[in-house]
């Protein structure tokens, strides 16, 4: 039987078409349009082509350099804490302790509660005059009057980090826990027979075995934290004096707050480029880890 090959060749494309169209409309077109907009001085009343002027201005601005530095500091500190706390939490939840199921449920609320609701709760906690944290600190004698956690530059920055870690840690914990549960018991038993202590078993067995999940979660968490907007916006709107303004907040303020769509688009393109670099590292590492696993 002779099959007419040319007719069959279109079939895969026909099947792919809906997804391709969807990606073109939802992803590709907005990206292209954002890039085009970044080459204009688009404002409320119209736009004209300005070439790479927006990028040039951004790169010359010291304020923008500070925003970039702050964004990376925010991201590395927050992700570092999430990973450490996630590992500690998952280890505890994986231990054979009574009421383990209950603890596993209790770790979920920060992740389950809508971020906006959680942040409004934190906003109250941080309030100088009506807030729980300031009240407790006064009662136990740590401070002698109310303290506004969001009123000063450094405390506001670290307070926003605490909230971001609170929101992001449960998911990391759950993923690490799932990975830990997949580690073969035989490995632990063999190590135990050989006299390995708890710390050695954790360092030599658990960590290497769940390393692909640690890498994946670190990189994904970096992307999410880099783009974390609502937490900062609800708590401080980027203030005071820009102390909590990260790149995504700066982009929003410029494009939506000030209706400078062209300048905002240039910032958005920079975000895409930086996240593209993270994604590249992510895929490279995943590839390497997969190869490593295949060899093992």
């Amino acid at each position, binding site marked *: 039987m002779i099959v007419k090959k040319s007719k069959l060749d279109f079939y895969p494309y026909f099947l792919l078409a809906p997804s391709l169209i969807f990606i073109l409309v939802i992803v590709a077109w907005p990206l292209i349009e954002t890039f085009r907009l970044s080459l204009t001085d688009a404002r*409320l009343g119209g736009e004209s082509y300005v070439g790479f002027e927006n990028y040039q201005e951004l790169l010359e601005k010291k304020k923008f350099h500070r925003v970039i530095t702050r964004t990376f500091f925010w991201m590395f500190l927050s992700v570092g804490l999430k990973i450490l706390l996630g590992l500690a939490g998952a280890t505890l939840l994986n231990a054979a302790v009574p009421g383990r199921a209950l603890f596993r449920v209790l770790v979920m609320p920060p992740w389950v509660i809508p971020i906006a609701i959680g942040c409004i709760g934190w906003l109250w906690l941080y309030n*100088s005059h009506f807030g729980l944290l300031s009240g407790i600190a006064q009662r136990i004698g740590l401070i002698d009057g*109310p303290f506004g956690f969001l009123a000063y530059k450094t405390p506001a920055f670290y307070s926003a980090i605490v909230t971001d870690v609170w929101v992001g840690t449960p998911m990391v914990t759950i993923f690490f826990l799932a990975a830990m549960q997949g580690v073969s018991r035989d490995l632990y038993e063999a190590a135990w027979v050989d006299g390995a202590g708890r710390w050695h078993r954790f360092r030599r067995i658990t960590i290497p075995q769940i390393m692909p999940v640690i890498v994946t979660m670190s990189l994904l968490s970096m992307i999410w934290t880099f783009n974390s907007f609502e937490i900062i916006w609800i708590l401080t709107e980027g*203030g*005071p004096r820009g102390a909590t303004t990260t790149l995504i907040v700066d982009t929003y303020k410029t494009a939506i*707050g000030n209706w400078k769509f062209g300048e905002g688009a240039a910032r958005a393109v920079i975000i895409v480029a930086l996240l593209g670099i993270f994604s590249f590292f992510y895929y490279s590492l995943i590839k390497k880890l997969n190869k490593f696993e295949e060899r093992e």
Partner: protein
Amino acid sequence: MEEYMKSIKLALIGLLLVAGSSFSIRAADLHFIMCGGEVREADQTVVDAFVANNPGVNVNIEAVPWGTCQDKSLTLAAAGDPPSIAYMGSRTLRQLANNDLIVPAKISSDLMEAYQTGILNTVTVKGTHWGYPRAFSTKALFINCDLAEQAGVACEAPTNWDELYDMAKAINDNTDAAGIGLVGKDFDNTMHQFLVWLYSNGGQVIDLQTGANMLDSQSTRETLALYEKLVGVAQEGPTAFERSQVKDLYNDGQVGMYVEGPWGRGVHNEGMNEIAVPIPAGPSGVSGTLLITDSIAVFKGSGHEDMAHKLATTLTSGESQYALDTPDGGWGLTPIFDYEKLGISDPYYKGDDYWAVFINGIGAGGPEPLVEDFKSMQSVFVNMIQGILLGDDTVDNLVSIAGEEFDELL
């Protein structure tokens, strides 16, 4: 076949007529964006009467919460789908006008004469009125008399900044409350409250005649220096507070005084022992206030601007406007008109000392500056104010920087 074609043609003509008639009905579908999250009964009554008097006209009122209201109208206009009319802060008018998104207001000469002094300045750019003034407010200093007396000072109006500081310090030192509530959050009322003090010190932001930048001045330095001094007797961390949050502190007895609009009496605890007094005068000026208005703007490109003007005029004049200004069922605002000139013989503010405080300052008041990029203007002010509240820099440097940054916006 011919018969068949004939009936198809008739059916098509019939369809065209039906479509045409429905089009003519929809031709005057006015879209009115109202801020506040709910449609006030008084507005609905005016709109219903307007619809009844203008057959074929339909008005769709969309009530949007304060926080997103202005942005919604601007976004719709930028996207080419403008509302017919919208309630906007008057500070946005210059940006809207410069970007060709709104059309000039058509205010009758009778109404122009009836407006309080300075009101029209808040909607005027280069001689053209760009909005119908809708809501007007001035500010006063509210003092909690219980706290003042507890601190051992008489509950009387401080007339200058030294007396103000002394009173705030007495409350701060002798009670559990802070002397004064200051606002310093990234918020528009941080700028507004600073302007209240600046205008009470003979300061200016823009010269109304020449349009020149007047921010970098001795008056501004003195005003910022007042903030520097007051921060020591204010509530903890003013940069985390905007006006409504300071109001909560005031109601809770945690600050002795703060600056608020005429609605203050209505939002404070019932039976509170308090006085509302004029803003104390600075060393270089006389007691003044900030004249701030919101307006109804008529957007360009809705296709029925004339009808939109008519609706805006109806809403912002006569009884409809009075119903909004009065505290009985309205918002309790500083009267936008001298209502006696409009034939209302016994307006709500007449012979009332409380309202006199808000009305008497109008003459020495200054407008909210009209610049195209008003959000950037707000950032310039907030940055300067937060700079002094956080002790980041000196008064001199902060005012100089603000002056330079403001130059770029003019």
